[in-house]
């Protein structure tokens, strides 16, 4: 079972990266802000991160034997590189101090490297956490995977002073791929072990996951599509419906029966 289960989170991780790439075609504008000619799409960074993460996991013991604390040393190296670049630029550059620093090729190279590291870090951490079955690294991966679209949104909103529209269906698929990655990682963590009897639990959890994700998707989709689902009558339509607050309110309203069910069953169980 081990190899088959371990394969699944990789699929969802790759799917999430693909969705982010499709959802933010203006990602290249973000990377252009770092370096004008930097035209690597997000999927490229994500793929690179995933491959490096897998390779690092495979050769980590050998690497640690040769270099003690490689991650710490990498971090230290980057800081020293920045410091050295600034010093060299200030010493050898032309023009004002500010121009010397901003126009420096070394510093720009450093920024491109840092950008590459940040963009590929979530998939690096994600693939490493699947292989190493590490919850701590997994948590960092999730944080990184959320920060990537967050960064794009903030940058684009700041650039254009408007809210870029996100397609509901694509948003739903993206959300489901992230949910799938989280759940399938837990399958690997829970069921890819030989020291505990597990019976038919995996099949039951698979069914429960699909069921609950399905219900959640329906609720989320209805919340976004409410406007198009109801007739345009004043009694049932209101301005806020078209705003994010209205959509959130509709979503919460649709969740309220489920919340009530949870509370009632929790009380009954408590007795």
């Amino acid at each position: 079972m081990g190899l088959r289960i371990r394969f699944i989170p990789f699929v969802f991780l790759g799917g999430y990266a693909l969705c982010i790439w499709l959802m933010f075609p203006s990602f290249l504008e973000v990377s252009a802000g770092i370096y004008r000619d930097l035209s690597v799409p997000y999927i490229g960074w994500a793929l690179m991160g995933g491959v490096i993460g897998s390779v690092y996991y495979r050769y980590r013991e050998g690497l640690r034997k040769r270099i003690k604390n490689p991650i710490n040393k990498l971090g230290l190296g980057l800081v020293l590189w920045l410091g050295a670049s600034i010093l060299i630029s200030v010493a050898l550059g032309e023009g004002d101090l500010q121009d010397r620093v901003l126009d420096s090729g070394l510093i720009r190279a450093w920024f491109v490297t840092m950008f590459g590291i940040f963009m590929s870090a979530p998939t690096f951490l994600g693939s490493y956490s699947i292989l190493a079955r590490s919850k701590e690294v997994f948590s960092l991966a999730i944080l990184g995977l959320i920060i990537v679209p967050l960064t794009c949104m903030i940058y684009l909103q700041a650039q254009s002073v408007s809210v870029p529209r996100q397609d509901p269906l694509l948003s739903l698929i993206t959300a489901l791929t992230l949910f799938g990655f989280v759940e399938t990682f837990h399958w690997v963590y829970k069921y890819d072990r030989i020291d505990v009897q597990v019976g038919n639990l995996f099949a039951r959890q698979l069914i429960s996951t699909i069921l609950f994700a399905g219900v959640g998707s329906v609720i989320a989709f209805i919340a976004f599509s409410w406007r198009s689902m109801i007739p345009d009558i004043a009694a049932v339509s209101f301005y806020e419906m078209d705003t994010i607050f209205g959509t959130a309110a509709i979503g919460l309203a649709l969740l309220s029966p489920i919340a009530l069910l949870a509370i009632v069953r929790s009380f009954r169980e408590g007795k």
Partner: protein
Amino acid sequence: MGRVSVFSRKAMGYGAATLALFILSLVLSSGLFLMMSLIGMAVILLSLSFIPRKPEVTRSMDSDLIHEGDEVDVELRVQGKGGLGQVEILDRLSPTLRIQNGNNHAFLSPGERSVRYTFGSPLRGYHDIGPTHVRRWDPLWFWYREDEYGEKKRITTFPERTSADMRRMLKGPNKQRPGDMHLRRVGPGKEFYSIRDYVTTDPFHTINWKAYARTRKLQVNQYEAESVTDLMFILDSRMVTRAGTLIENPLERSIRFCASLADLYLTTSNRVGLINYSSSVTVLKPEGGTNHLTKLLHTLTDITPSGYHTLGATVNYSLAYIPPDSRVFVLSPLSEDPTIKEGIKKLLARGHNVVIVSPSGVEFERSVIEGMITPRYLLKKLSRINLIEDLRSMGARVLDWPPEKDVLWAVQEVLSWD
């Protein structure tokens, strides 16, 4: 223990992420983050709604009284209603018990289920099993409710008894049947043998009044002597007998030897007693029968090495409990005790047949340090060889028992000396 409800780290992570995404979605007007948070909330709430009902759990075991090396089959029956969610069951075992088959920790779907496992006890003593902990999880492992079933149950592990057919090796008078043997001579016994004239030292209850009525002379009954071997073990359980590993050391070897030989002699209607010296001296007087065997085994099970009592002092204290003419087995590694010769001398002077069974503490110590030969080892070994020679020259029989030889070998050696 009552119910305990705990949210897992997964639930905390989901909750925190969902809340953060919801807030971010409102701040950034992001449909993507709102979708993520709504799906997250729905999943959390739905999963929390489905937790299995509390099941009934019963445990059944083969036996709670076993010997070292024996295995016990355990079956846990879980009876509950079906549904979504998971049931996690853990039957607590003492760390000294070893799982041989199956697992005492299992995840089950709700309903009528059973968990089977087998454990073994490599070490004598009193071990605990239970209570059984049951956790009822929601379908996505966000939270659980924990309940405890039953109390701790005690498992008694007696020392291992070598089960080879050793009775044929028991030499001595050819007994026609097990138990007492009549020797066709006068002695202490229960069967009438003859009558003789009364002398003033005869007990009053032995006067044969019918013979007196016939002859007008006081006469007393005489009885036929019976052969009942008395065996006394003097077991050294001081701290020094722990040299070696937890399972293989001079004390454990001596205890298994004592259990094996005691079993053999008690089941052939002889009487066996035990004197154990450690931080104090305890005496189990010689008796016969299966009840006494059980008592002896419990005493051996309960022994823990401690103290620094000496053999000399032990013999002084317990001579009164050792029946005359009985055979005495001294089970000791013969180390760290300057009074050994004095103690053995006293026993020999009293006419006892003394056999010293000595697991070599020096060799057990060496086996722990991977067979290294150190000057200390050589000195101790030389000292031991000299002591054994001295004891043999005094008239005691000494079995120098190396670690690589098992209990069966030691018993066979000793029985072959009869």
